């Protein structure tokens, strides 16, 4: 018989579907733990040029995180957040996308922006909030945004980007663009109401959006066992009618393959896809966190060394004869120099001028803000000695 929703088979067995399957959803991987290609794997081939570019970006991202984290510790920036352990997810997923795909990040995906061409200097400018910051000094560190890179400005409240991504995907579909929306979320973020709303809506509106969940095991100090009781995040896709896959997030080739194919399906078939990338958050949640307080140091060390996605991919690239110790040394020296130079330049650059306090609240500055700006300038003129000399008026 039919019910609203369609035909359904009847059964006389009184049985509850178990909350969890007997076996967990398997995890797609291409490389083994040491970076060796597994047998009979169906994966997207990458050329030498592409592989080296992916690897170099992973190293750059890793170095960026180390040095900028240190910069916060030295008091040069107020806050920083690393993507350590998730370099493969960041870079390989970005490499699988086209520049027209609109990216809506959570906040641990600066590697995607790096891949798309954001320079060290542009990153540093945002962190220092100087006058070259595209955010005009409005946002706290790591809240990057760049229209020209199709990277939507980072917004702190968790998971709000998920339904927004559906809105953008729907618009891309209406415009018949050969592009999709790609949005990232952590394991913790899947508990938010917006996760439910975003996935449900994406399915109902048949929008081409990739939901990439970085399941790194931790939401600040909350372990995934306290976050949900499902088999991770991949099984939630089925609840919304969304095709889903679980991949080894520390395997650059697996991530690259999954994202590339997901993208094609999403755009051609007008469907969302959920990708759960399994990984481990090697760094602390942010510079405001000390994760050794809630997890064992040897666990962190293990993931940092034995399961490191960067060294794993390096092994594969080298095994093809495409990389060497010399190339590594040269890359690291060059990146380090570039980074330190960028930080120094950004520090020396002056802050945004006063008018940026009042601009962009609305499209056209309203009368009250114009008045306030005039009053402030008056006050500065009268008390110039109280006004900081390194901030332009």
């Amino acid at each position: 018989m039919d019910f609203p929703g369609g035909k359904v088979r009847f059964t006389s067995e009184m049985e509850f579907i178990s909350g969890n399957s007997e076996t967990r959803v398997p995890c797609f991987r291409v490389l083994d733990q040491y970076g060796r290609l597994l047998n009979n794997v169906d994966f997207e081939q990458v050329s030498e040029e592409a592989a080296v570019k992916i690897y170099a970006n992973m190293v750059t991202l890793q170095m960026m995180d180390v040095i900028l984290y240190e910069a916060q510790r030295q008091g040069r920036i107020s806050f920083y957040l690393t993507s350590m352990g998730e370099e493969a997810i960041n870079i390989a997923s970005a490499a699988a996308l086209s520049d027209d795909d609109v990216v809506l990040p959570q906040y641990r995906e600066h590697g995607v922006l790096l891949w798309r061409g954001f320079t060290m200097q542009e990153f540093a400018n945002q962190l220092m909030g100087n006058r070259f910051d595209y955010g005009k000094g409005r946002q706290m560190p790591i809240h990057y945004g760049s229209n020209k890179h199709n990277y939507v400005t980072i917004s702190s409240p968790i998971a709000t980007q998920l339904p927004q991504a559906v809105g953008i995907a729907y618009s891309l579909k209406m415009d018949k663009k050969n592009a999709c929306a790609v949005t990232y979320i952590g394991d913790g973020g899947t508990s938010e109401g917006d996760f439910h709303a975003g996935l449900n809506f994406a399915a109902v509106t048949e929008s081409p959006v990739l939901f990439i969940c970085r399941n790194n095991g931790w939401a600040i100090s909350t372990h995934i066992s306290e976050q949900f009781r499902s088999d991770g995040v991949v099984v939630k896709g089925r609840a919304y009618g969304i095709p889903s896959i679980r991949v080894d997030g520390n395997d650059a080739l697996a991530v690259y393959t999954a994202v590339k194919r997901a993208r094609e399906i999403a755009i051609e078939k007008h469907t969302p896809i959920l990708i759960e990338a399994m990984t481990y958050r090697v760094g602390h949640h942010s510079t405001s966190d000390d994760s050794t307080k809630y997890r064992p140091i040897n666990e962190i060390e293990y993931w940092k060394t034995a399961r490191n996605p960067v060294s794993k991919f390096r092994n594969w690239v080298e095994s093809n004869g495409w990389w060497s110790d010399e190339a590594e040394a040269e890359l690291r020296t060059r990146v380090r120099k570039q980074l330190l130079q960028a930080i120094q330049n950004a520090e020396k650059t002056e802050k945004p001028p006063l008018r940026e306090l009042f601009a962009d609240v609305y499209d056209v500055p309203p009368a009250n803000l114009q008045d306030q700006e005039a009053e402030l300038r008056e006050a500065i003129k009268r008390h110039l000695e109280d006004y900081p000399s390194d901030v332009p008026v």
Partner: protein
Amino acid sequence: MTVREALNSALDEEMSADPKVFLMGEEVGEYQGAYKISKGLLEKYGPERVLDTPITEAGFTGIGVGAAYYGLRPVVEFMTFNFSMQAIDHIINSAAKSNYMSAGQISVPIVFRGPNGAAAGVGAQHSQCYAAWYASCPGLKVLAPYSSEDARGLLKAAIRDPDPVVFLENELLYGESFPISAEAVDSSFCLPIGKAKIEREGKDVTITAFSKMVGLALKAAEILAKEGISAEIINLRSIRPLDRATINASVRKTNRLVTLEEGFPQHGVGAEICTSVIEESFGYLDAPVERIAGADVPMPYAANLERSAVPQVEDIVRAAKRACYRAVPMAATA
């Protein structure tokens, strides 16, 4: 023209003029709108431009904001602004602040509309007025139409505006009919945002109001006129930006002010108007400012209690008289 017809025609014309404009909300399509405001639009524009959404205010508001980031011009309907609280993070943190936080890279040309304030006998969770809450946030524009002309002109202005606009309608006004000029019926008609309208000129006391309360203020003005008090009624139309110039000019003329609103008194619209007048026209006041607002309780259901919780015409008349020293001030009776 009824307010309902005014809103419907405004939506229709703006959707016709700009293919980027689309409507989304619960029941807006097949059902023709929970209050029939979107009647006929699904049939005319199709399901790509009139979207019936699943029940998730947070969800469809987030989607609307995302679509606006991309460059579309969504009109998001809340069945009542009471339910917008489930989406308020997206309205404030995603819509209102994005242009500023992104330094102009992301603009959000979105309109949030729906009935606001008290209806009749719907209780606490269906009767709150959200004008003060939304109007306190920089980055938003907040409009409150009263008449059909207001509804047409302000909704068109809201849809055309590049900033996020909160458009507060009133359920009880939907069915009310107002005379409408030929100019207002034209499809290019638009009212400026940030300009109040002087509905009735007067010289003895200024009464500010918005939405349904404008109607009550006009009735009060009739009664006051018979007792020799000439009240000037200002229909605010725009809560943010507030037309401080018009309000202050009026108070400088009448020297007395009564602020009127349906919402809760603390941190209300009247509180802001009172401060504005004190800041700019203190010397012109001949009497303390009188503030009429809803009772400081969640809206009760029983008809007699509800009546006592919302300003009535006699409350406005008494306040105007107190301001004109024709009655004993409230403080003296305490």
